[in-house]
Each structure stands twice: as structure tokens, then as C-alpha cells.
């Protein structure tokens, strides 16, 4: 372990930690609203450790969606991580097997982005640096989940203080984060129409899978643009 690299990682991750903290607390509060205990909420933050998909998971869980669909949705929302782990492979070849395990476990959006940037600037991607950057985000994420869940249990009716709109707005923000991608508008339009129709004619939770499938199929069927090179930048979110 190189102490300087570790400290440099801690410093680099600090701003990300600050930005992610409100979302950790928000997750904790909404998890409790959707029937989780404080311990459940912290367990999910500790094991899944992927903000957006955790929110999707509790939202679907609160709507009594079948378990397989909850897991599938978490998988779908996190699918971009396949691209991350493929893309950082060339920077972490020198890590040991155990180091790689922790590397992949901590691979959230800002961690990926910063690793790529560090490699691009020609700085060494050491495990010490990576761990420092990851841990300064990971542990506060758990603490903020705990604080939010504790706060959530003290609140009576979440609707009276407007908590219920935060989740759809949060998801709206995530959708907007992808607006630079190819075929964004047709995909969103297809998924929006299909999910609203499915909600009306089939009912929840099927609106999720039907709507998602409509957008994904459309993206695959639309004429393909010539090679664009690298995968576009992902949204900013822990």
C-alpha cells in the first residue's frame, strides 16, 4: 500500500462523497417509506452500492412487483457497469485477484470516470489510489443511508411533506442525464407511450418491462449510425 496514493484517492473522492450524500439520505428515507427497516436500507446500500438502482429497487418493491422483476430492473439500471468494467480492464491488469474483487465491487459511475481520467493523464492507477477514492465514498454512503432511514421513520405521512414526488423527479433527472446519447428522443418517446399504455391496459408492474422493451427494441431496429468510436460519457451519479 502506498500511503500517498491512498491519501490522494481520499482527497479526490471527497467532493464526490459530498455530492452523493443527499442521495444516500434520500434513499434511506424512501426505503423506509417503501416498507424497509433501517437495517434493510443500510444492508442494501452496503451490498448493492449503486444509488439509482437502489431507488428503482425500493420503488418496485413498494409496489409489490414480483421479485425476479425487481432484480432484473436493478440489473438493467446497472447494466452500464458492464461497459465500465470492460473499459477499465486495461488499467487494472496489474491488480491481484483479491484487489480486482474490491475494484469491481466499488465500481460506481464517478469511480469509473475518475479512473479513466487518471489513466488518460498518464498517472498510475494504483490499488491504493483506487481504494482511497472508493472508501471515502462508500462508508459515508452507508452512514447517510442510516441517517436518512432514521429521519424517515420519524416522519408521519410522506405525502404531507412532499417526499413522494422526489422519486419520479430523481428518475427524470437520470433520464435527462442520457440525453446526449444517440436515439435518445425516440427511445424515451417509445418507452413513455408503451409504459403509460401498459399501465392503463395491463397494470403495474408490467408497465416497467413492457415500456423498457419498447424503447430497447426501437433502438436496435432504427438505422445504425456509422461507428462513433468510444462509448459516450455516462451520467454523473453514485
Amino acid at each position, binding site marked *: 500500500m502506498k500511503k500517498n496514493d491512498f491519501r490522494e484517492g481520499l482527497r479526490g473522492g471527497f467532493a464526490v462523497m459530498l455530492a452523493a450524500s443527499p442521495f444516500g439520505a434520500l434513499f434511506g428515507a424512501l426505503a423506509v417509506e417503501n416498507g424497509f427497516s433501517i437495517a434493510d436500507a443500510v444492508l442494501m446500500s452496503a451490498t448493492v452500492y449503486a444509488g439509482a438502482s437502489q431507488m428503482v429497487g425500493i420503488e418496485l418493491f413498494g409496489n409489490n412487483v414480483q421479485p425476479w422483476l425487481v432484480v432484473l430492473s436493478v440489473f438493467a439500471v446497472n447494466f452500464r*457497469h458492464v461497459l465500465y468494467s470492460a473499459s477499465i480492464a486495461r488499467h487494472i491488469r496489474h491488480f491481484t485477484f483479491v484487489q480486482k474483487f474490491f475494484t469491481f*465491487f466499488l465500481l460506481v459511475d464517478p469511480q469509473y470516470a475518475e479512473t479513466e481520467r487518471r489513466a488518460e493523464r498518464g498517472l498510475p492507477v494504483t490499488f491504493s489510489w483506487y481504494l482511497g477514492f472508493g472508501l471515502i465514498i462508500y462508508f459515508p454512503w452507508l452512514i447517510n443511508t442510516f441517517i436518512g432511514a432514521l429521519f424517515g421513520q420519524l416522519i408521519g405521512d410522506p405525502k404531507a411533506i412532499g417526499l413522494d414526488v422526489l422519486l419520479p*423527479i430523481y428518475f427524470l433527472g437520470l433520464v435527462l442525464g442520457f440525453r446526449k446519447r444517440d436515439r435518445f428522443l425516440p427511445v424515451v418517446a417509445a418507452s413513455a407511450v408503451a409504459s403509460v399504455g401498459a399501465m392503463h391496459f395491463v397494470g403495474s408492474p408490467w408497465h416497467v418491462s413492457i415500456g423498457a422493451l419498447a424503447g430497447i427494441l426501437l*433502438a436496435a431496429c432504427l438505422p445504425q449510425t456509422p461507428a462513433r468510436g468510444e462509448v459516450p460519457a455516462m451520467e454523473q451519479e453514485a
Partner: protein
Amino acid sequence: MDAQHLNLIYLIIAAAVATFATRVGGYVLITQFKHIPPRLEAALNAVPAAVLTTLVAPAFIYGGFDVGASMLVAFAIGMRFSTLRMLLVGWAAVMVIRHLVL
């Protein structure tokens, strides 16, 4: 611990395994595949926006005037500013509508 709570624990663990699979999957795949077909890549690129839209659009259509209006306000903010600011302004909007307008 009752059965329902135990099921929730299993669900969380399954979600964690699914997430870890995505985080290690790309590394495993890249060592096998040389090339991803463009249509598959286009489909994969569309996954997050397609899934997340299904959690936004029905809430906007069926959520009632207060939710719909505050989502519109948040959308306008979100085109320029951060998600955090969207949340704060959207939250303020729904509180104003619920306590002062309706």
C-alpha cells in the same frame, strides 16, 4: 424474523449479486469477445433511458395535477441544473401546490 422480511433480505442479496455481475461481467466478456455487433450495442445503450422512462412517464400521467405540475417545473430546472437542484425545486413546487393552491 418473519418470512416476508427474510424474502426482502434474499431480494437485497440477489440485487447485490446482479449488480456485482454487471461490474465484473464487462471485464470477463472483454477477454472473450473482440467485437460487439452495432445493433446489440445500440440496444444496450438504450437500456437505462428506456427503463427509467417507464418510472417517470406513468407517474407524470397518472400522478395527479400536483405531481405532474411539479415534475414539469423540475424538468425545466433539470435542462440547465443538477439533479439535486431539480429535487429541491420540484419538492418546493409540490409543497406550494399542496398547501397553498389545492
